[in-house]
């Protein structure tokens, strides 16, 4: 729902081929999928809707963020945590298997107005970190300076820290202090050690997003969050995934609700009620 226009390419379905599917942290897998769909995945922050099994159990697709796309647009990467039946089935796929993917879906992070030399902070938590990686790559390509602050439960859950550190400084936090600094990502933001920044982009669990809203809602700094919700269609038709606009956004947009799958998942931090 941002004002910024951004190239959004067509979504379709495709049986994509698994190139790799390997654990990157405790219960977390990285899957690379090949197919023509990848060339449409040009906007970081979008997601795909994935059919995890062949039959009717599980019935619905699962939304997973696009974590990276190769520069030729031939394959993309997603990183997912095994939560329930759907992601468990995904984790059993081996190279050569196919996965039916619907995407790319939704509105990603608005970045076309970013200028070289700006400083952007990426704030991620757990399986909210993956979309930030593709975002970081795109930003760095534009000459934007990127600092990542990524939080996990503990050391065993940490991933993408090394990859992100090749694109800019990375702060890792863990709840138990077993890796990086002990505490929350917001502790880093408020610690004073951060350089000033031009925009913040975030994806992570609801409490994290709420904490960010509390920190920045009343201010004026540019900030975007990617929001999760249980989905049905993933394309804006079923109204499973609605969220409420803030009073301001309601007035500005005339909208009484947003659909996270198609208006989001990325929203202006001040635009939605969490």
């Amino acid at each position, binding site marked *: 729902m941002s004002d910024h226009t951004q190239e959004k390419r*067509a*979504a*379709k*379905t495709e049986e994509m081929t698994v190139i790799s599917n390997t654990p990157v942290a405790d219960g977390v897998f990285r899957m690379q999928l090949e197919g023509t769909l990848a060339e449409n995945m040009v906007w970081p922050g979008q997601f795909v809707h994935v*059919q995890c099994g062949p039959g*009717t*159990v*599980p*019935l*619905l*697709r699962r939304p997973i963020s696009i974590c990276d796309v190769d520069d030729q647009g031939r394959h993309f990467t997603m990183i997912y945590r095994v939560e329930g*039946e*759907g992601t468990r089935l995904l984790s059993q796929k081996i190279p050569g298997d196919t996965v039916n993917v*619907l995407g790319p879906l939704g509105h990603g992070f608005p970045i076309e107005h970013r200028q070289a030399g700006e400083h952007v902070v990426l704030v991620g938590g757990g399986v909210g970190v993956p979309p930030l990686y593709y975002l970081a790559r795109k930003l760095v390509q534009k000459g934007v300076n990127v600092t990542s602050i990524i939080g996990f439960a503990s050391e065993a859950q940490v991933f993408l820290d090394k990859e992100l550190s090749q694109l800019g400084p990375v702060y890792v936090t863990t709840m138990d202090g077993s890796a990086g600094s002990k505490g929350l990502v917001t502790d880093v933001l408020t610690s004073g050690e951060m350089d000033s920044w031009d925009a913040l982009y975030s994806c992570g669990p609801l409490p994290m997003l709420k904490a960010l809203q509390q920190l920045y809602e009343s201010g004026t700094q540019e900030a975007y969050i990617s929001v999760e*919700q*249980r*989905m*049905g*269609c*993933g*394309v*804006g*038709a*079923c*109204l*499973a*995934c*609605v*969220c409420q606009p803030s009073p301001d956004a309601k007035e500005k947009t005339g909208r*009484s*609700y947003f659909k996270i799958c*198609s208006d989001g998942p990325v929203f202006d931090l001040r635009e939605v009620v969490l």
Partner: protein
Amino acid sequence: MTGLNRTETVDRLRVRLGDIEMKNPVMPASGCFGYGREYAQFYDLSKLGGIAVKATTVEERLGNPTPRVAETPSGMLNSIGLQNPGMDRVINEELPWLKQFDIPVFVNIAGTTVEDYVEVAEKISQRPEVAALELNISCPNVKCGGISFGTDPNVAADLTREVKRVSRVPVFVKLSPNVTDIISIAEKVEQAGADGLSMINTLLGMRIDLKTRRPVLANQSGGLSGPAIKPVAIRMIWEVSHSVKIPIIGMGGIQSPEDVVEFFLAGASAVAIGTANFVNPYICPEVINGLPRLLDKLGVNEISELTGKGLMR
């Protein structure tokens, strides 16, 4: 394919629901396809036999709190509620857009009082884009302590009668399966003037999260749809089609041409596909395209021949 063959293929799938002609028997089910805009990015909606749009009420409704969907074995629960922008915006923004596809539009209408329904029916049915109303009687009736209109034959019949009085287009009544005796409801509704039936709406179901110990749906319970309910739909359509003469739009778990034929044999004259759109956005055209081959296999020329041709054992 030659032009001749193509014409034949089209004709084989043609069905009639009373006065309504459909070039094929497949439409998306109400609530599962918005007003069509989202799926128009995947294919040309004029391929559809028709379209049933989301329940429309007098005023805008915001529906239930989230989470609104949950997964069940071969099914899903939803508690969207009656979220919709209200009839005026539907009339001004959605229906005109749908006109371009030149397919029969079934507008699902809902309310909490008879007056509500009548108001929507009167206004919506005047629109030239509307082929028929689909009366969603699964809604709670606020004047009867919130019990659904669809659970009492007389209440359902009264509502049908009032809506028929004002409607300029045929009225299909969408029956709730959460009843003891669906036959008597169907019969009463037919007597009250219904032009057809849509069945079935969702079964009431629930899931509880073990960790939070709370229902997965914020609304506690929701409607069960998808393949899991198909045998219940087939049974109810079979029973009802042996008791009424008006045409039936069948739905509940359809995801293949085979399912469509099973619904026809049970007594349906057309079908609607709901949940399967979420699994495969191309499901409606794929099912339509698959029908001629299946008819060949079954040695049937026109699909309309199959309605109610299920045999007793």
